[in-house]
């Protein structure tokens, strides 16, 4: 898994490339926690290049959301592929995350 992170205004846009699973979930969590420690509390996760995600990866997304929420910030998602959208529906996470089709659309909502 690779994480491409860029700051757009005060939002950290994190593009997750490859597989997000049990073996590497901590990398994403650490990236989010490091920024929260610097009082950066707004996150947009771009899942357009995500090849695979399992329940550990989903749990990591929830954990990051909880951390951002606890800090008074927000964590939203953009570019959800069909297979991930189905997994979100199966696990009811479609009711938890704000999901957008385009980055520009999502960034306006922070």
């Amino acid at each position, binding site marked *: 898994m690779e994480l491409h992170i860029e700051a757009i205004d005060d939002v950290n846009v994190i593009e997750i490339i490859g*597989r997000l*699973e*049990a*073996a590497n979930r901590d990398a994403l969590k650490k990236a989010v926690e490091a920024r929260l420690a610097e009082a950066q509390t707004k996150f947009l996760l771009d899942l357009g290049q995500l090849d*695979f995600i*399992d*329940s*550990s990866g*989903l*749990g*990591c997304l*929830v*954990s990051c*959301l*909880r951390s951002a*929420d*606890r800090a008074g910030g927000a964590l939203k998602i953009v570019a959800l592929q069909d*297979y991930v959208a189905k*997994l979100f529906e*199966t*696990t*009811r996470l479609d*009711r*938890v995350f704000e999901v957008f089709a385009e980055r520009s659309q999502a960034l306006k909502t922070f």
Partner: protein
Amino acid sequence: MTTKSIQLAIRSRLENVPQIAAALRGLCRAAQLPLEDCRAIELCVTEAVVNSIEHAYGRDTEEEVGVTISDDGTSITIAVRDTGTPMAADTLARKKQEAIAFDPADVGRIPTTGRGLAIIQSYMDTVDYRIEPDGNFLVMRKEKHPPEE
């Protein structure tokens, strides 16, 4: 049609799980399964293997997780075997309910774990768990559908 079977085994380490997933992707492609079914099988086997590593073995990294994939022409059956602590008899049914029993508005209480077995039960056609003398077996079956045109 003769049933074709392949057996795989890994040490009980999370970093080994993608190897099983890669092997499954190849097998599913060779069986000409639709992409959606390939993804479902890869996901469910990953969930089952991680479940064995994290729960049956409690992250003891020197144990073995075995995966047997069988293709009888009409369905793919995968058995994931471990020799660790078995699941309680009601775990499958309980997890299916618990995984979606949360208030989406109460962000701080949304669970971060416990979805794996529920996902398996949603994506596979049948799921069975057996405790036998030579190990614990999570057996899941997916009917084969013709590839999309």
